C-alpha cells in the first residue's frame, strides 16, 4: 500500500542545532497517526516541514504520489494538507461563519461556475453543517475574536475540514483546554470522516492512545520507535526516553 504522505530523510538545522536529522515517515489514507516525544524532539518542526512553512535543508516530502517539497503552505493546502495550529489561528474580526467560508473557498467548485457569488454561496452552504457539527451554531454570527479559547479551537477544526482535507495536521489541539473541553475535543476528533488522514502531535498520552492507530516516537530529531499504541505504551525504550526528556 502506498503512502498518502511520506517524508524521506528530512533534516532541518537551526545553526548548530539539528532539529530534525533524517526523519522518514509514512501516513496512509485515513490513517490516525500520532507523533510523540519529549520537548525539543522536533515534532512541531516536522509538522512545519509537512505543512510547508519550514523548508528542510535535506530530504523530500511527497504527497499523493507527488513531490511537494518546493511548494508553499498555500499550495499544499490546495492539494489537501490542512492544519490546526498550537494557538488557534482564526480571523478575529470575521464572524465564525465567515471564517469557515474563507477556509472553504480555495477548494470550492461552484455549481454554476460563472454565476457571480456562486463560489461564496456554495462555501456558505458548506459552513452551516460544519458549525453545527462543531457545536458552534449559536455563535455563527459572532466575530471570532470574541469567542472563548475552546470555541476557537473548534472553529479552527471546522475551518480545516471546510478545506476538504485529505490530511489533517493537528498541533497540540488540547493545549489550554479544560478537562471538559478536552473530552469534547476527543469526541469531535473521533467523529472526523474516515477518509481524512490525521497526523496528531500531542503531549497528553491518554488522548494519543485514544485517538490514534499508529504512533511514532521522536527524540532529538530522529525516529526512536514506531508501532501501535499498545506496542508503544509498553515499550521500555519509550518510557526511558520520556523519563530523560522530563528530567
Amino acid at each position, binding site marked *: 500500500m502506498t503512502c498518502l504522505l511520506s517524508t524521506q530523510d528530512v533534516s532541518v538545522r537551526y545553526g548548530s542545532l539539528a532539529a530534525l536529522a533524517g526523519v522518514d515517515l509514512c501516513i496512509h489514507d485515513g490513517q490516525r497517526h500520532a507523533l510523540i516525544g519529549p520537548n525539543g524532539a522536533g515534532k512541531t518542526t516536522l509538522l512545519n516541514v509537512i505543512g510547508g512553512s519550514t523548508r528542510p535543508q535535506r530530504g523530500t516530502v511527497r504527497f499523493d504520489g507527488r513531490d511537494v517539497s518546493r511548494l508553499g503552505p498555500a499550495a499544499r493546502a490546495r492539494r489537501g494538507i490542512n492544519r490546526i495550529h498550537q494557538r488557534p489561528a482564526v480571523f478575529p*474580526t*470575521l*464572524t465564525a461563519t*465567515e471564517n469557515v467560508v474563507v477556509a472553504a473557498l480555495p477548494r470550492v467548485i461552484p455549481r454554476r461556475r460563472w454565476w457571480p457569488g456562486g463560489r461564496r454561496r456554495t462555501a456558505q452552504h458548506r459552513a452551516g453543517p460544519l458549525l453545527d457539527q462543531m457545536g458552534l451554531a449559536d455563535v455563527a454570527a459572532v*466575530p471570532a475574536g470574541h469567542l472563548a479559547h475552546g470555541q476557537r479551537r473548534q472553529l479552527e477544526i471546522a475551518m480545516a475540514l471546510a478545506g476538504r482535507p485529505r490530511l489533517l495536521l493537528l498541533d497540540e489541539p488540547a493545549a489550554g483546554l479544560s478537562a471538559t473541553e478536552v473530552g469534547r475535543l476527543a469526541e469531535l476528533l473521533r467523529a472526523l470522516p474516515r477518509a481524512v488522514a490525521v497526523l496528531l502531535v500531542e503531549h497528553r498520552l491518554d488522548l494519543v492512545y485514544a485517538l490514534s492507530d499508529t504512533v511514532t516516537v521522536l527524540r532529538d530529531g530522529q525516529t526512536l520507535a514506531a508501532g501501535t499504541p499498545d506496542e508503544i505504551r509498553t515499550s521500555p525504550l519509550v518510557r526511558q526516553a520520556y523519563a530523560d526528556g522530563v528530567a
Partner: protein
Amino acid sequence: MSLTTPRRSRALTATLLALVLSVSTACGDDGPGTSASGSIKIGLLASLSGTYQAVGKEIRDGFELYLATHDGKLGGRKVDLVVADEGNGAATAVPAATKLLKQDRVVALTGIVGGGSVAGVYPLLNETKVPLVGSNGRPELKDVSRIWHTSYLSEEPGAAIAQHVRDNVKGSVYAIGPDYQGGWDELRGFTDAFAKVGGKLANPDGKTTFTPFPATTNFTPYFARIKASGAAAVYTFYAGSAAVDFVKQYAQSEIKDVPLYAAGFLTEGGVLNAQGEAARDIYSVLNYSPDLDNAENRAFVAAWKAKHDGSPTTYALASYDAAAVLDRAIGAAGSDPTPEAINAAIGQLGQIASPRGTWQFSTTTHSPVQKWYLRQVRQDGRALSNTVVGDLATVGR
C-alpha cells in the same frame, strides 16, 4: 461599508458627513466686486505660508504700501483688498483663487508667486473674465489677453546680461540652474542670448546643468564639475534657500575665485542677509535696485523703510507697481469699473512712472519693456547691499 463595522463608527461617519455638509453650505455668497458704497474688491494671491513665503510677504507688503500711501484708494475708489494664501503651488493656489474669483467676486487679481500657480489659475481667469495683474511668476501662456505682469519674463534677466558677460569674461562660461520651469526659462534666456553674441558655454555637453529642485541642498558635486570644466565664469539663477546654499557653498568651494554672474534673485532681499560675506562681489542683473536715483524711488524707499526693516526688493516693487497699474486703470475705466473695463483700460496705459524708471507694457507679451541694471554686492555702510554699477540693455518686445 464592511460587515462588522462597529456601531460607534457609523455614528462617527454620520457626524463627519453632517460636518462636511454644514461646512460646504456655510460658505455663502458675498455679492459682486463693486458694492453700492463705491468700494472695489481686489484679490491678492501670494504665498504666505510654505517655501516661498518670504517672496509672498514682500508682494503683499508692496501692494499694501501703495494703498497706505494713497489713502487706501485705487482710481478714486476705496479698495477692499481680499488676501488669500497661494501656499506652495498650484494645488493650494487654485482653490484659493477660486474663492477670490467666484465667492469674493473680485474685479481684478494680483500677486501670485509661482509660474505654476499662474498656469493653474489661468483657466479660472478665462472663465470669470477677470484680469490678472501679476507681480512675479509668469509661465508660457497661449492667450495673454487678460494676463498682465509688472515683473518680467523669466528669460529676460539672462538676455539682458549676456552681452556684458561676453564682453567682460575671457573664456567660457558655465551655466547652472534649478531644474524646474523657472530655472529652464531663466537659463535659456541667458544661453540663447549668449550664443547669439558668440559666447561659449563651458558645460561639457554645451547644455546648461540643471540641479534637482528643491531637493538639492548640497552643490559641492556640481562645483567639482565646474572646476573640471575650466570655466572662466559661472552664470546661474537661484532664489530663496537654494540661493543661500549655493552662494555659501560657492564661497567655500574650490571655484570661489571664479567670477559669479547671476539673475538678481540670487542676492535679492532676505537671502542676502543669510549669505553674509559669502555674497560679496557677486554680479547680478535685475530690473530694480533700492539705490536707483529718481524721485519715485526715493519716495518708495522712504515709505518702505518707515514700515519695514531693510530695503524693498524687486518683488515688493513689482507689487507696488501692480497697484499703480490698477490705480490708473480703474480710474480710466469709467463709472462702472467692471473686470472687462479694467482690462481694456490697462491696455491703454502707455508709459508708467515707477521707482525702477519708466516702463510700459509690451503689446504682445503684456509684460514690461524695461531697463535692466548690473549690480554688485558691495559694502554699504555696515551691511552688504546690491549696488548698481551700470546699465544693461532695455529688454521687452
